[in-house]
């Protein structure tokens, strides 16, 4: 199948994969996408392998999130950066099929009121914060509908630091990220629970109508069938069966 | 200070002559404009020059004819329009009506190269207007080097000679803000002279000078006139005007009320306003 996609590659002979910097855990490891560790890194290499690229033929490039959907030629073959599929976005760029089905989760400091009180009515009363451009923020606004306008930060790190300093009461992120934050990054914090799925999923981002999409979709389907995706999820993301579900 | 007194070339008949010229010009413009022979008879000629600032009409129909070599003194009350007249001749103000001709060429016509005109006219401003960011020497060599294309060292040498002549040799590397009023005025004179203009417009050029220097300037002006320069001098110093002028023009509210040789204007003025102006001066013993 390599011959079929060769003419459509950004650079001849290599698969150019983009992500933002910093690349967050647990999706990547140590801000180093090229080490093959972390869920998205592993997926990228696995997809590459399906398409016939050796590990050394996969090249990483930095693409800020804001720049990933700019019109014009892309400087990558695909972008893997926890980007959620939405129909609006799909009018500008093309997405692969889901390589991860997302559920949003709620993080707060351990001593926060929210840990105990999170009925839908209670949930409207807190001060939330989130990273700009995340679907988590849209989730807060469309599903939780808080009375106090949520804070919006440039990076997830700014949001985490705001949570630590008590400038926001809760943070919403996809479950793996939330798990990682509460377990490894902010010791005082706790994952309060995850919300029911809204059918959201992450997809690899391509230039609009990129012929590569079909091939990559096949590769992802193969990875699903052969259990690779489940294996990566287990290895890098854990399985969160223990996470309580809260109804928004 | 070679010649004690320069008698005007055109002598007593001059006033009548220029009157004739003005009329002739009005009758037949084109023919005379192109005629160098005719042109050479008049260095400066103003025809019905009007100038307004907003609502204020400052010059209200000036007719003036100046032959080459002549020294004309403009006298008149403060605010009568002397400075404005000089600025108009140098094209620093645009006239609202009338024409200005230099050596027979209409310089108020469209398409005239203002820079070429100004290259041949020097002006010393009443407020000096030295360039504060340049030394005295740079002030006076700027024109020669940048306009006439004289090499820098040649211009500096000539400039230094002029500065010596005006007692300013020690100040050549000073900046204008550090000079006394009289020193600034002399630099302004030198700056204009360094351009070797054919016509000089001097605006109150002795106002900040001590009497010794006034005599010196008087000598220089005579020398220049002898060498062919034409000069228009606005002045309040009647003694100076009497000494230097071939012709004195009395300006009042934007019109020339009276003109003639100084002897005539100062001793037997025809116009009653002139008489009044001079009477008070004479009364005060200031002539």
């Amino acid at each position: 199948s390599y011959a079929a996609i060769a003419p459509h590659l950004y650079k001849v002979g290599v698969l150019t994969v983009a992500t933002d910097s910093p690349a967050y855990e647990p999706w990547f490891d140590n801000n180093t996408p090229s080490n093959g560790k972390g869920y998205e890194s592993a997926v990228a290499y696995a997809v590459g392998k399906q398409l016939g690229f050796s590990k050394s033929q996969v090249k990483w490039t930095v693409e800020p999130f804001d720049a990933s959907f700019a019109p014009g030629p892309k400087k990558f073959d695909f972008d893997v950066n926890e980007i959620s599929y939405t129909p609006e976005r799909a009018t500008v760029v093309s997405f692969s099929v889901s390589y991860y089905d997302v559920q949003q989760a709620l993080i707060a400091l351990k001593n926060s009121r929210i840990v105990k009180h999170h009925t839908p009515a209670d949930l409207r009363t807190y001060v939330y914060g989130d990273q700009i451009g995340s679907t988590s923020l849209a989730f807060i606004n469309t599903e939780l509908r808080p009375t106090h306008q949520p804070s919006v930060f440039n990076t997830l790190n700014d949001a985490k630091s705001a949570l630590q300093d008590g400038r926001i009461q809760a943070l919403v992120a996809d479950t793996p990220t939330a798990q990682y934050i509460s377990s490894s990054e902010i010791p005082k914090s706790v994952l309060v629970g995850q919300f029911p799925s809204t059918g959201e999923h992450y997809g690899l981002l391509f230039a609009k109508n990129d012929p590569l999409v079909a091939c990559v979709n096949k590769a992802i389907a193969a990875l699903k069938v052969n259990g690779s995706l489940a294996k990566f999820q287990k290895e890098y993301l854990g399985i969160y069966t223990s996470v309580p579900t809260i109804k928004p | 200070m070679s010649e004690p007194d320069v008698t005007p070339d055109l002598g007593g008949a001059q006033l009548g002559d220029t009157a004739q010229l003005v009329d002739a010009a009005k009758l037949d413009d084109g023919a005379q404009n192109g005629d160098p022979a005719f042109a050479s008879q008049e260095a400066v000629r103003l025809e019905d020059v009007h100038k307004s600032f907003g609502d204020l009409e400052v010059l209200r129909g000036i007719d003036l004819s100046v032959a080459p070599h002549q020294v004309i003194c403009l006298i008149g009350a403060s605010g009568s329009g002397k400075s404005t007249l000089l600025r108009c001749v140098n094209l620093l103000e645009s006239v609202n009506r009338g024409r200005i001709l230099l050596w027979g060429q209409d310089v108020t016509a469209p398409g005239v190269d203002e820079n070429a005109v100004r290259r041949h006219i020097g002006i010393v401003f009443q407020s000096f207007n030295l360039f504060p960011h340049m030394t005295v020497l740079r002030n006076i060599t700027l024109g020669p080097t940048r306009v006439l294309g004289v090499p820098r060292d040649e211009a500096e040498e000539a400039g230094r000679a002029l500065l010596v002549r005006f007692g300013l040799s020690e100040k050549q590397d000073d900046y204008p803000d550090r000079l006394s009023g009289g020193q600034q005025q002399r630099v302004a004179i030198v700056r204009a002279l360094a351009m070797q203009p054919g016509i000089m417009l001097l605006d109150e050029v002795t106002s900040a000078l001590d009497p010794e220097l006034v005599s010196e300037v008087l000598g220089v002006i005579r020398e220049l006139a002898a060498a062919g320069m034409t000069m228009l001098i606005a002045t309040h110093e009647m003694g100076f005007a009497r000494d230097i002028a071939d012709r004195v023009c009395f300006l009042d509210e934007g019109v020339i009320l009276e003109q003639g040789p100084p002897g005539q204007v100062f001793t037997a003025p025809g116009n009653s306003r002139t008489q009044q102006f001079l009477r008070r001066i004479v009364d005060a013993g200031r002539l």
Partner: protein
Amino acid sequence: MPVRGSREGAYLDEQTLLAAGAPPPGSFEGNGRGSHLLGGQRAAAVSTVSTVVFIGAVIALFVFAPGAAAVRHTFFNPQQMKQAFLGDPSKGLYSVGKGLILNIEMFLIAEVLILFCALVIAVLRQLRNPVLFPFRMLAVVYTDVFRGVPLIIVIYGIGFGAPALYIRGISTQSDFVYGIAALVLSYSAYVAEVYRAGINSVHQSQVAAARSLGLSQWKSLRFVVLPQAVRTVIPPLLNDFISLQKDTALVSTLGAVIEANRAAQIDSSTLFVYSSYTVAALLFLCLTIPLARFTDRLIARDVSRRLAGGRAVR
């Protein structure tokens, strides 16, 4: 002595004042290029045509270039521009228009404080009294530091630093307040330098005249120097006004202040188009252009009052 008609001879014979005579006929005529920089009727045509061509080319670029449709879709999608302007909570879209009001509020409050603080700093820097040396030094250090440090770092430093200090009164302010504090700290340094330029442009003799009337140092500054200084530096002052207006956007990095640009950013990252940025930019232009035209008119009026006529030369 010969009357020199042209400039070919030696320049100024030594020690002699040589007057030049009449130039040859025709020497005053324009040289085809006209007397002004690019003057003349032909030049008029050239300048008009070239301007039209230039503007036309820019427009054509956006209409006929191969990728133009995509660019238009991303940057100038009218449907999405309207959505961005009004916002749509059901889709998680913020209102850029509402955000702008926040910008204006921050701008106005900050500007007043800046104009005042900057003046104090500029005046401190002008003092030559040895007694006040420490104040002068402080003013110099202040401008150096706050001009040198990027505004975003000042905003981070105050907005994230102050709450982290856990000091009562300081650590519990809103992001809005932190943001304005950071803007004032940073911009005062710039505006102080602009004032200083203005003050330096007023000639020493003006101060002498003011002091000679018995006006105190402060009063001569107030009535004589500053009015002239400010007139001179209106354009760069306006520069800083406009920058400030735009930099109010940076306050959004603190999280809680969703001003116009942040709203646009959220919308654009939600919908993957930049039209919302275009809306924000257009709104900002609607504020700054009238301001620019207004100050231009002010300057022109001032000049014409002081100089009516007498401006044949420039």
